[in-house]
């Protein structure tokens, strides 16, 4: 409403009513007066007044004008002034502006204006307060984050934090270096195909191994252990031996809230273990070899004590002694050549309550469709020192073989202390048929399989990890037989942890990353929002435009987009030897000369590394059909297939801006005001494409395209989709 407007309809209505009323009064008064007069008097009055009627009308008009003037005053005071106040108040309400209200109208109206002004001022103060609080809080968060980041980067141990789906949401530099050493293609992908935000830790660790460790932690938490953690050792694909210490991340502050993720502290113990094994071997050679030699010498010397020995026999015993002394000397010399460096190491074992192990074994055996498990004699107080993962595998494997090959339907588990100090017997017992010694031997030596899973280990390996023994015993009387594992007992009892339990209310919260809340959506990939997917945005440089006619890839570059952020540090860039010439005409476009690709890996090696880098992500490229064509033509030769969904920024741009003439990458980048650096290297183009893609996502949302499925479908329908490359 305009405060300076002309009087509105209500004003005219009131004025009209007033005029009507006056007219009515005049007419009624005249009629009443006339009705009291007789006919002659009426004529006299009418003749007297007849010519003076305009005078009466004029006074009437004058009165009406006075009334209108008065009405106008009232209207301004009681209608216009509040209306203006309303307008001003609305403006203040609708904007953040802190402006004074013009005082006007009568006293009440002015008072109302003052009150509103008070509210406005109060609002401004509150706003400033909140803003200050938010600033302070985010300063704190920022500080804590950078403190955490500094702390993490200084750690000499590698740390990886994952959510329950195994997605990495935090890692430090050390971890990155370590993963680089684990990479199958360290020179190609630099370990970035293994570690990165949002990547799955299961590309490095067996999912079941991690699940098993989490389960152990869960059991410990149920028992009320203050800081439950689990440890496991695993070999990676690249043959490295990693020790991982797992600690749960709990969502709440109270001790027994649910696990929302886990922290892994990783140690590459390959070299330690190799050294230790070597040391072990030397030591064993020395002790056992020496024992035998000493025994031989001792026996021979004892024989020499007989006084009536024939000379020939005496010479034979002398020969034995000379021989063995020589052998011992050689052995010691060999050993001295290799430095002896401390004591031998064992496979790292963890303390576990025997009863926990058996209940896990029961579940495990029954889960692989092995025989039913019944408890036999179980000493619930025993704490074992075990590598529970491999030991459970061994039990499940043996039980399954018993079921498969001897039709054993029920087995029993027994755990008792062994007569030897610090050892326990873990027995897998069954009733009925038993087997030959050869069979037991081959079961021990075969690589284990259980529930269709193959393990590289044999039962013998598992037993050796524990420094234990394994054999088959028969209880003839009871018509039973059992496999016996002789296992070490834990020396320090873990129960101590329970005693030192303290409520963890004061646990500092360093971070609150979105990925903690993200759970692997059970929805189909196609139904997931574009904003929460992980993408590999890539580009290739090629010798030409016709892959079908022998053109080849000479460079692949890719960047990752996770949770709406471009991760520049997790990129992939590799030149490829095309094993053919590079046309001189194309060199100005990509700037790659034949001597740049000489000595680079061929596509057979680069494509698998890129495939690993891109796994679990959606592929994005500009004019994707072109790049995909090159990748697909290599499928047969390299054996890798890119089966994930593909998005094309060219098609998406055409979808968002259907009226633009050009959808070349440069043109789109210019429209979005994206600074282009290093274009026409594969990685440079991939990064520009990624930035374009990130700008396209909100524009697509405006068009009602939110999910991957919708984006792919809409892209299909655009005109460009019909062009065949």
């Amino acid at each position: 409403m305009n405060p300076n407007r002309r009087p509105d309809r209500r004003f005219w209505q009131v004025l009209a009513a007033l005029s009507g009323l006056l007219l009515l009064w005049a007419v009624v008064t005249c009629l009443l007066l006339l009705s009291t007069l007789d006919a002659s008097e009426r004529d006299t009055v009418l003749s007297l007044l007849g010519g003076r009627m305009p005078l009466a009308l004029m006074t009437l008009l004058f009165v009406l004008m006075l009334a209108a003037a008065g009405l106008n005053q009232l209207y301004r005071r009681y209608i216009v002034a509040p209306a203006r106040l309303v307008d001003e108040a609305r403006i203040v309400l609708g904007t953040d502006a802190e402006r004074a209200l013009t005082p006007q109208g009568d006293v009440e109206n002015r008072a109302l204006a003052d009150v509103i002004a008070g509210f406005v001022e109060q609002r401004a103060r509150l706003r400033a307060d909140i803003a200050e609080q938010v600033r302070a809080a985010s300063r704190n968060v920022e500080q804590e984050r950078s403190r955490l980041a500094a702390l993490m980067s200084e750690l000499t141990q590698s740390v990886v934090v994952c959510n329950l789906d195994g997605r990495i949401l935090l890692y430090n530099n050390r971890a990155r270096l370590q993963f680089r050493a684990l990479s199958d293609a360290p020179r190609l992908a630099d370990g970035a195909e293994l570690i990165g935000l949002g990547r799955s830790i299961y590309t490095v660790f067996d999912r079941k191994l991690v699940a098993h460790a989490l389960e152990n932690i869960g059991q410990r938490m149920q028992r009320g252990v203050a800081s439950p953690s689990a440890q496991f050792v695993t070999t990676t694909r690249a043959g490295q031996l990693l020790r991982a210490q797992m600690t749960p991340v709990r969502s709440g502050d109270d001790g027994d809230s649910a696990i929302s993720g886990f922290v892994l502290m990783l140690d590459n113990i390959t070299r330690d273990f190799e050294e230790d094994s070597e040391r072990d071997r030397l030591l064993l050679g020395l002790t056992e070899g020496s024992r035998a030699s000493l025994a031989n010498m001792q026996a021979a010397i004892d024989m020499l004590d007989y006084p009536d020995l024939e000379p020939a026999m005496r010479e034979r015993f002398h020969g034995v002694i000379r021989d063995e002394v020589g052998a011992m000397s050689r052995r010691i010399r060999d050993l001295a050549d290799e430095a002896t460096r401390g004591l031998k190491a064992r496979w790292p074992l963890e303390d576990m309550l025997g009863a926990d192990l058996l209940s896990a074994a029961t579940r495990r055996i029954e889960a692989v469709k092995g025989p039913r498990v019944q408890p036999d004699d179980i000493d619930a107080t025993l704490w074992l020192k075990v590598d529970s993962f491999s030991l459970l595998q061994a039990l499940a494997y043996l039980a399954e073989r018993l079921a498969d090959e001897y039709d054993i339907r029920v087995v029993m588990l027994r755990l008792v202390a062994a007569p030897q100090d610090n050892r326990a017997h873990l027995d897998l017992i069954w009733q009925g048929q038993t087997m030959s010694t050869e069979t037991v031997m081959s079961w021990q030596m075969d690589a284990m399989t259980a529930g269709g899973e193959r393990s590289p280990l044999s039962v013998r390996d598992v037993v050796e990890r524990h420094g234990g023994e394994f054999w088959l015993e028969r209880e003839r009387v009871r018509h039973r037989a059992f496999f016996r594992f002789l296992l070490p007992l834990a020396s320090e009892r873990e129960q101590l942890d329970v005693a030192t339990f303290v409520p963890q209310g004061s646990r500092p919260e360093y971070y609150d990353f979105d990925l903690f809340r993200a759970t692997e959506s059970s929805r189909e990939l196609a139904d997931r929002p574009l904003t929460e997917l992980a993408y590999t945005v890539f580009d290739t440089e090629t010798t030409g435009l016709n892959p079908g006619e022998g053109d080849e890839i000479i460079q692949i570059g890719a960047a990752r987009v996770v949770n709406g952020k471009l991760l520049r540090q997790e990129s992939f860039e590799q030149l490829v030897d095309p094993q053919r010439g590079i046309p001189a005409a194309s060199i100005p476009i990509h700037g790659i000369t034949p001597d740049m690709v000489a000595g680079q890996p061929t596509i057979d090696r680069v494509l698998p590394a890129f495939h690993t880098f891109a796994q679990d992500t959606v592929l994005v490229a500009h004019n994707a059909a072109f790049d995909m064509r090159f990748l697909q033509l290599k499928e047969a030769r390299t054996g890798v297939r890119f089966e994930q969904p593909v998005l094309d920024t060219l098609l998406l741009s055409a979808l968002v801006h259907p009226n633009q003439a050009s959808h070349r990458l440069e043109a789109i980048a210019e429209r979005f005001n994206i600074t282009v650096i290093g274009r026409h290297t594969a990685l440079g183009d991939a990064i520009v494409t990624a930035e374009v893609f990130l700008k396209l996502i909100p524009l697509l949302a405006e068009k009602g395209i939110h999910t991957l499925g919708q984006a792919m479908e809409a892209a299909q329908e655009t005109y460009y989709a019909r062009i065949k490359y």
Partner: protein
Amino acid sequence: MSSKILIADDEPNILVSLEFLMKREGFDVSVARDGVEALAAIREQQPELVLLDVMMPGKSGFEVCQEVRADDALRGVRILMLTAKGRDTDVAKGLALGADAYMTKPFSTRELVQKVREMLG
């Protein structure tokens, strides 16, 4: 009549001494140089006592021991295991598999003779 003893060991350097010793102690001695040979000799000769080395080619002492114990016809055979493996787990396994006694190398021949006499007596 003297007791029959079989010595099974793959090392000639100990065989020569043990054979000499046991013969001198008046036993009827035969020797075997690996596990398979040892098992065949036990079946054929049914010795009263076997000095059985654990680490032998062909079949280990553990296997020989287990097979002897699995055979009811060989119930009378006593087994004394000899080994250079000193770990207590090996001792436990040997005894569990049916060895009557266990000696760790090196041992004094006097103790060995004494043990053998105890076992036969």
